[in-house]
């Protein structure tokens, strides 16, 4: 019997070694392993003490040995509790253990009875193991139960064995109180117990093994899951990046919508997509893009939605006012309750997310996604969808700016085209007019040339032959005849002068204008000198302006103007005992123009008859009274007109005359 106990001990020591090795390797990973080790140490200690019966005092061997063994068993169960993360009943354990020791002590030393002791011990042990079975079979989490399968089996077998031992001891009470002198049946039982101990150890190792395996699988699964998540996140990020890139390349709203639609459908389940644009002034969401089940719907069919920022309750309203994504679940039921008409077995979308498109703090619009799946859009989705929505908003904003820019450019181009067209028309008209003028000038020139030649030639012949008559035939003509000849000659001379003046007038019209800045007083002085020389006998008092007076015009032509006007003044003041001529220059405040004036105290004229004063050959006085041919004022007017100025006259009979003129601005 002792040999059996010793072999049991050897087995127990090997099992202890196995458990210790298990403990050393996995103590950090698994709970309860330390307790298993302690349990095994106690069991080993108990067995050792029992094996040393008769070598050590009975007190140590029997009481302490059995106590250690029992404690080891209890600790095993406690270890199982720890392993399966179940609460441990410490107080009860201690109380029960003490009760066990007392009873055991009683049947060992006070009333020694091996049979009762063995049965009591077995029953107590059975109770402990039953607790273990109860724990594994009922108390552990369902997913942990398979781990304890082997232990459960072993504990069951322990129970059976204990039952057998109790029966054996009842049927065949121990022959003697001598522990090592037990019968064959008892020996078989102890051997079986030994085998079960090995099985228990094996089951524990298997259990730990299963637990480790599960842990590894779980951690692997977690890692794989994490890696998958990362890859998905990367893919999402890449797609978001591509969306941003594609949006930046889009030029129109239409392009942006189709880019957004394609990209969103790639990234998430969203059979229905709508983009509405928000007008902050009218607080209106106007649909701009709707795609239902991949089919485009005219956005004008959907009515615009007015958002009351103060009391927005709808998902869309909340999304716009809070500038945050709003998820709506259970849409199908809400729609049905809201009176949505469903045709046949038509499905209704059940999840929706409303994503405000925010650019620089401004809500550009709303991106709406719908899915037929229930509770589909997650807060995680909302995070990246918000990024996508803002990107789309930016794209929309850019496209609008671009459109506005293009409109402006187009308008500019149009107005420029208009200006160019007008310019071209104007230039053409200027060219036409210039050509006309040139043609007219050419005609005038050839006319002048013809007049110059053809009118003069016969005149010269008349004058020449009259002279021949007058000189060669003087003796043969009476006084009357000679008088007639003189008349012929005088008229020829007068006609010659007329032709001369007419040519001058035409030249004034044709000559190129050579405008310069001039001094009016100096011009007047030069003209005065000429006129005084032409009328050497006359004494005329002249008043010139005191101040320097600037004038812009053609010096030669302006001198012709002044000479003509002064010549007239001289002529028409001839009857005055004291002739006076005033040359004046003043600034007209109303028009800002300089007005020049040549005024005299001559005979003047009746203004009512002055209508055609400036037309060629128009005269108000007879040639006999005042010589002249009526070309002078016509010439003056022509010159003033060519300067872009005006000429007018104020006069009254016997009150003198005043000729005023202005010269247009220099071009």
């Amino acid at each position: 019997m002792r040999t059996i106990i010793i072999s049991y001990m050897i087995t127990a020591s090997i099992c202890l070694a196995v458990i210790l090795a298990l403990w050393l390797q996995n103590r950090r990973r698994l709970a309860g392993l330390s307790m298993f080790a302690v349990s095994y140490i106690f069991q080993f200690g108990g067995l050792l003490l029992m094996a040393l019966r008769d070598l050590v005092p009975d007190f140590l061997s029997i009481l302490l040995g059995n106590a250690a063994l029992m404690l080891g068993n209890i600790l095993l169960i406690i270890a199982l509790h720890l392993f399966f993360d179940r609460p441990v009943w410490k107080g009860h354990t201690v109380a029960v253990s003490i009760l066990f020791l007392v009873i055991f002590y009683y049947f060992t030393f006070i009333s020694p009875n091996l049979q009762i002791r063995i049965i009591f011990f077995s029953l107590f042990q059975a109770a402990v193991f039953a607790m273990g079975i109860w724990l594994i079979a009922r108390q552990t989490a369902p997913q942990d139960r398979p781990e304890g399968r082997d232990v459960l089996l072993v504990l069951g077998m322990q129970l059976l064995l204990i039952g057998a031992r109790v029966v054996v001891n009842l049927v065949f009470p121990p022959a003697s109180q001598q522990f090592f002198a037990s019968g064959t049946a008892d020996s078989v039982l102890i051997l079986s117990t030994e085998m079960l101990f090995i099985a228990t150890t094996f089951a524990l190792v298997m259990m730990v093994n299963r637990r480790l395996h599960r842990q590894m699988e779980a951690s692997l699964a977690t890692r794989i899951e994490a890696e998958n998540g990362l890859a998905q996140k990367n893919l999402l990020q890449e797609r978001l990046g591509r969306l941003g890139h594609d949006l930046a390349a889009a030029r129109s709203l239409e392009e942006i919508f189709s880019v957004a639609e394609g990209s969103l459908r790639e990234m998430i389940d969203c059979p229905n997509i709508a983009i509405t644009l928000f007008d902050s002034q009218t607080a209106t969401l106007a649909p701009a893009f709707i795609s239902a089940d991949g089919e485009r719907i005219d956005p004008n069919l959907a009515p615009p939605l007015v958002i009351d920022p103060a009391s927005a309750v709808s998902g869309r309203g909340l999304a716009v006012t809070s500038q945050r994504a709003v998820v709506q679940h259970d849409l199908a039921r809400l729609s049905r309750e809201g009176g949505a008409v469903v045709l046949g077995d038509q499905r209704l979308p059940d999840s929706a997310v409303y994503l405000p498109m925010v650019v620089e703090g401004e809500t550009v619009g709303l991106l709406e996604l719908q899915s037929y799946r229930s509770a589909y859009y997650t807060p995680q989705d909302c995070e990246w969808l918000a990024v996508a929505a803002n990107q789309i908003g930016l794209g929309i904003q850019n496209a609008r700016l671009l459109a506005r820019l293009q409109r402006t450019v187009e308008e500019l181009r149009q107005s420029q085209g208009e200006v160019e067209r007008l310019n071209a028309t104007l230039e053409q008209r200027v060219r036409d007019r210039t050509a006309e003028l040139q043609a007219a000038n050419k005609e005038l020139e050839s006319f002048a040339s013809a007049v110059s030649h053809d009118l003069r030639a016969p005149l010269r012949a008349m004058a020449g032959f009259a002279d021949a008559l007058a000189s060669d035939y003087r003796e043969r003509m009476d006084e009357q005849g000679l008088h007639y000849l003189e008349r012929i000659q005088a008229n020829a001379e007068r006609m010659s002068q007329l032709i001369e003046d007419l040519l001058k007038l035409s030249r004034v019209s044709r000559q190129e204008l050579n405008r310069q800045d001039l001094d009016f007083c100096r011009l007047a002085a030069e003209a005065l000198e000429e006129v005084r020389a032409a009328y050497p006998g006359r004494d005329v008092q002249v008043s010139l302006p005191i101040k320097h007076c600037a004038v812009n015009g053609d010096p030669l032509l302006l001198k012709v103007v002044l000479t003509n006007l002064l010549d007239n003044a001289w002529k028409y003041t001839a009857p005055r005992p004291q002739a006076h001529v005033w040359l004046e220059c003043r600034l007209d405040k109303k028009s800002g123009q300089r007005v020049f004036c040549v005024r005299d105290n001559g005979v003047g004229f009746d203004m009512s008859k002055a209508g055609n004063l400036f037309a060629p050959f128009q005269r108000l006085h007879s040639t006999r009274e005042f010589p002249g041919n009526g070309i002078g004022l016509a010439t003056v007017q022509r010159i003033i007109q060519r300067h872009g100025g005006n000429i007018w006259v104020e006069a009254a009979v016997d009150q003198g005359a005043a000729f005023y003129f202005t010269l247009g601005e220099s071009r």
Partner: protein
Amino acid sequence: MKQKIILLIEDNPSDIELTRRALNKAHIMNELIVAEDGQEALDYLMGTGKYAGRDTREMPAITLLDLKLPGIDGLEVLRRIRADERTRRLPVVILTSSNEESDIARGYDLGVNSYIRKPVDFRQFAESIQQLGLYWLVLNEPPTG
């Protein structure tokens, strides 16, 4: 020495007569050749047409040229005179009724020696002719060859 010739290119008979009279009045007795149109004048100078065979070494000392001529006009005659090697140095005076500046300018451009406007008054005309004759026939040294 041979008498210096005056060539008058003029189509108006009155002007021809008056010029002749003015020359007489001024006592200019040089031979006066009258060409009544441009072609005749060129024929005379180049020894062609009506004047074929004329000794063209004998050139007028002064040519009086009217501008308004039938057919080839005065300025064209002048251009051809200046274009021909034999006559390009010929003293030519434009004697015309026109005092259009364009005519004067074109005349000088084509190399005329003087530009005289015929005055309507005969006495002034006669005086002009006298001075012309004095200058070109007496004072002026004609080109040789």
